[in-house]
């Protein structure tokens, strides 16, 4: 493969790595301090459209290496959308079937995209980011399929799978270290399964223990797919509090207004969890004044037009002749 000419033999060669990092773009108009460099790492430029390409690929490769998929055995996975879309597209391209168990509240776009990517869809009443241990919800429905039909389904289980963390230790962390030439002082992330925060932080703090890792959370009762409120963190197996310096709680509606501002002010078509991360970065920049920050922007806005219409006045009207 040749990352210079960007000509590839198959889509998997495009997956991000230190040699082929997802791009980092400087925030210009929306940076509140001239002495603080702020960059966004655009994860939607990964081949399947989000940060979850990294975890999905690591989990799938491990199952392949252990011989746990193939011969009629495919995947079942609980997901708020992105992991499922990555996994389904990858699985289908490699010849496995995939069943995605999703909370009813995820945006319609994600449900339809999962089906387009080739997943069989189970929609259940559940919190927006499935939480292990609470109620039953999508995680336990997926576990039921995997247990009752073990010949048909392997379950990667992103909520407990160490590969979800290792993917970021191997790729996201080294990419940022190299792209910033070791100058990074602040990392801004959100928390879902916590794979991104734990893996990236583990690598970067290994390089420089003084790097501050800031996790941004939506307020309780939020409507930001993929994320989890602090009150639910106790049940995230992959969360490691020693790897996080600050947890900020941000009014969840700001996820939508900041995402819109990023679209219109910086030309970055960032999704709601990116909007929330940006708001957290802004607050820390006003506090710390100096530094070199990297925000991991998980995905773009295209899957959230229906959510945006709910939260941004004006988007829902004037769309008909």
């Amino acid at each position: 493969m040749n990352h210079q000419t960007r000509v590839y033999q198959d889509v998997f060669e495009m997956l991000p790595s230190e040699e082929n990092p997802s791009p980092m773009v400087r925030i210009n108009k929306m940076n509140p301090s001239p002495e603080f460099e702020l960059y966004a790492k655009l994860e939607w430029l990964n081949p399947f459209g989000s940060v979850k390409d990294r975890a999905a690929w690591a989990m799938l490769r491990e199952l392949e290496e252990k011989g746990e998929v193939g011969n009629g055995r495919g995947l079942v996975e609980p997901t708020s959308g992105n992991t499922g879309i990555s996994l389904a597209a990858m699985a289908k391209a490699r010849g496995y079937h995939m069943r995605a168990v999703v909370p009813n509240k995820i945006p319609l776009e994600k449900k339809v995209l999962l089906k387009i990517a080739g997943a069989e869809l189970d929609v259940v009443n559940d919190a927006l980011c499935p939480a292990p241990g609470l109620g039953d919800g999508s995680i336990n429905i997926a576990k039921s399929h995997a247990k009752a039909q073990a010949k048909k389904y392997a379950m990667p289980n992103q909520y407990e799978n160490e590969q979800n963390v290792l993917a970021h230790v191997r790729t996201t962390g080294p990419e940022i270290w190299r792209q910033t030439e070791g100058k990074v002082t602040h990392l801004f992330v959100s928390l879902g399964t916590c794979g991104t925060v734990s893996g990236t932080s583990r690598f970067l703090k290994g390089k420089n223990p003084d790097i501050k890792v800031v996790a941004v959370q939506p307020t309780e009762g939020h409507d930001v797919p993929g994320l989890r409120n602090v009150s639910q963190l106790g049940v995230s197996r992959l969360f490691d509090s020693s790897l996080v310096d600050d947890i900020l709680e941000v009014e969840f509606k700001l996820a939508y207004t900041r995402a819109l501002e990023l679209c219109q002010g910086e030309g970055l078509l960032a999704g709601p969890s990116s909007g929330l991360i940006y708001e957290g970065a802004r607050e820390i920049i006003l506090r710390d004044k100096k530094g070199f920050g990297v925000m991991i922007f998980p995905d773009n806005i295209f899957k959230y037009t229906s959510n945006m219409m709910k939260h941004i006045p004006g988007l829902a009207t004037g769309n008909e002749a």
Partner: protein
Amino acid sequence: MANYAHPEVLVSTDWVKDNLDQPGIKLVEIDVDTKAYDAGHIPGAVGFNWQTQLQDQVRRDIIGKEAFEKLVGGSGLSPKDIVILYGDNNNWFAAYGFWLFKIYGHKDVRLMNGGRVKWLNEKDKPLTTDPPKIAPTQYKVTETHLELRAMLPEVMDISKTAKANLVDVRSPDEFSGKVIAPPGMTETAQRGGHIPGAKSVPWSTAVQQDGSFKSADELQAIYFQQKGVDRKKPTVAYCRIGERSSHTWFVLSYLLGLDNVKNYDGSWTEYGNVVAAPIEKG
């Protein structure tokens, strides 16, 4: 250490595993999410759908005697069987099923402690999608116990006279009236709040992290000491549609041994819709 008043109505997941395929022991799964049974159930278990099989399909009511006989007979149960109920959400609807089996006089009904999730998360416990083999029976109900059920007039009277404990088992936000129903639940009411005089004891205070019930000592401390349920009075439990309150009804009747406990299955979706009924908020 105190013991449960009726420990025989609770079985462990290990006991169920050791007694799979035993003649005379029948398993029934009842879930809030009716997809759960289809995804995988305990080998041999039948699944009841609470919406279509445990409710009268014309008026708002529990199924009548004939419908109950048809349902359980058609599922291969007979009156002598030991019936083990289990389900999702910490046995909410399994407890509702337990209450229904008791209303129709079934002698030996038991709950599997910890419900479906506990079974699912124990490595040695199998699940299957194979349908159970069923030999239908002619099930006959010989006694009914409608005294286990509270109806609206009685609840109104208790609220006025305080002659019985009223226990509201919903979440604090439903009790205060901040929300009318938990997110995603479709059955709701015109008004939020609680029945005047009710004590708030959310159903979940009775269970541990893994979904199994707390010890008798802990339960006594919670209901009698902390929440002030008067054990000398009769008690009525209610929630939104009567499923979470069945869970508390089970705790009060069988684990704590109170002898006059009723489930008000009309619950908030009845009371919160009644014109001119007094409501307390906050």
